[in-house]
């Protein structure tokens, strides 16, 4: 059995007296897409930067691709592609020049560079824009270039901090396809605030206050939470939501299009919930259905005090 790609035991990162990471335990054995999720300020960006070898950290054990993060990481960085939250390529260089610049830093042979570049430009749809300066690209194209740039030296680990933030829905789908393709050759670790992306990850790490609060496949996390979810359909959805919030076991109720999403806590009998929701005072409910718990309810339950 080969060594794990990532193995962290009691990883800590302090900024002065504040512990941004307060003892992270994490082992990842195989290539997959790992999503780091959790509330604002939980330590997501710090963890990603630590994995990319960008921080001095304390730990009982901290190896990434077999290299100890507490020692010399110069060699390790050649095998990591890192895409930070804000665009950090050269705006006055063209798409082609940016990729060439990165390839030279990695001492890629010209023939290998041309082969990788051609493939990445085709995969990202950036080929027609190879001679455009990065600063003139749209937000989605900039992000695709940043990812292509991180992939040009064929890294074994790709780390991306909110790669799809602020990108339109079409570009977001294209970026996700790139990440799914990258998974064949690399471990992909990313943070995201989008629920659909979290649900599409192979594995999720839920961080809170610098610690791993929960980890597993999206299905495992869903199965572990004790919430239940219902939809109540009716005409005046805002009135239904207000009335539903008055029920003692309802944690959240929000008018959502033609129905009200009702999050239920404390495992009341489903028959009772159905009866109560059908008979909400002052709000005509036409149909109530129980739903499988989704990513929104899962993350909501995990963030409950």
């Amino acid at each position: 059995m080969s060594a794990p790609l990532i193995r962290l035991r009691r990883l800590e990162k302090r900024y002065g007296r504040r512990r941004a990471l307060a003892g992270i335990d994490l082992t990842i054995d195989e290539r997959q897409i790992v999503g780091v999720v959790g509330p604002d300020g939980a330590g997501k960006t710090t963890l990603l930067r630590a994995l990319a070898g960008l921080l001095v950290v304390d730990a009982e054990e901290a190896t990434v691709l077999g290299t100890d993060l507490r020692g010399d990481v110069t060699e390790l960085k050649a095998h990591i592609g890192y895409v930070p939250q804000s665009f950090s390529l050269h705006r006055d260089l063209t798409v082609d020049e940016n990729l060439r610049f990165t390839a030279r830093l990695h001492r890629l042979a010209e023939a290998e560079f041309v082969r990788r570049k051609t493939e990445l430009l085709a995969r990202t749809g950036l080929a027609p824009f190879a001679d455009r300066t990065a600063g003139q690209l749209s937000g989605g194209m900039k992000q695709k270039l940043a990812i292509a740039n991180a992939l040009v030296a064929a890294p074994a680990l790709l780390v991306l901090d909110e790669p799809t933030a602020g990108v339109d829905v079409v570009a977001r789908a294209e970026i996700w396809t790139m990440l799914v393709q990258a998974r064949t050759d690399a471990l992909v670790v990313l943070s995201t605030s989008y629920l659909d992306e979290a649900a599409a990850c192979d594995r999720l790490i839920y961080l809170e206050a610098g610690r791993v609060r929960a980890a597993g496949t999206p299905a495992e996390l869903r199965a572990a939470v004790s919430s239940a979810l219902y939809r109540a359909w009716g005409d005046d959805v805002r009135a239904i939501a207000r009335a539903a919030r008055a029920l003692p076991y309802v944690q959240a109720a929000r008018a959502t299009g033609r129905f009200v999403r009702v999050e239920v806590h404390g495992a009341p009998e489903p028959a009772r919930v159905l009866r109560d929701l059908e008979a909400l005072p002052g709000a005509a409910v036409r149909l109530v259905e129980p739903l499988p718990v989704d990513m929104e309810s899962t993350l909501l339950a995990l963030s409950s005090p």
Partner: protein
Amino acid sequence: MPAPIIRTRGLTKRFGDFTAVDDLSIEVTPGTIFAFLGANGSGKSTTIRMLIGLLKPTAGTVEVDGVDVIARPRRVRDHIGYMGQKVSLYQGLTLRENVEFYAGLYALAGKELEDRWGALRERFALGEAEAEKPEDLPAGIRQRAGLALATLHRPRVLFLDEPTAGVDVRSRGLFWDLIQDEAGAGVTVFVTTHFLEEVEYCDWAAFIDAGRLIANATPEALRQRYSDGYRVDVAVPDAARTAVAATLGPVGETAATPEGFTLRVPALDPPVLAALDRLVATGARLDIRQPAMTDVFRRVLTERAA
């Protein structure tokens, strides 16, 4: 139908050769939540800046709550509340000191201020945050505080530019409850977001791409136009099949499945919901699949590109 509280006609803004907003005509009904959508750089923030009188359009007209914003850009400010992506709370001042500062701008003081802020503090759950400085507050609470301050002077129209960006799912939910409550109390909310599932919380959605309006309707109407409609998987016990078929009536297309049948309907209007409710009464189990807004807007953009 009441007269629109926000109305633009042919609104256009050019910066040199670049057209940021191109011939935009929208109308917003009072007391509704209007989602204004588009990618980064599509012209959303430029539009908001013109609507609130901070930027003069190159062409077109803007009217907000009866005020001609182009002719009287300062006049509109008493009618509106604004909260940007970066919440405009002063660092170094506590939340309470921020409240007093903003109250001063709107000549709100004494008992009137105490009553108004007391109510907001309670509704927005800001009691514990009052003595803290904004930089020490979690993003979700800071956003709520920003919304409380934007509504301090009881504006009739709220402009919220990506209020839930960078906020976790729990705070996003609480925030939308507050926004829906504001709309319920008659306030008009003009909001931008990148989370397309949040469009479901709104009454209307306008979508712009490269400065041009490419979709403008209720979320449900957009779903009907840009998706294959609702799919309802119905599981029926064998013994109940005949009874169920008799109960359903002609509400949509059906196709048999091993568990029962699949029903496709363009919309879940009252007759369809009533029919489905009758199905449940016969012992059938339903799985209603509503097309996701993400897919709806992906279709809007690809149809436009084609």
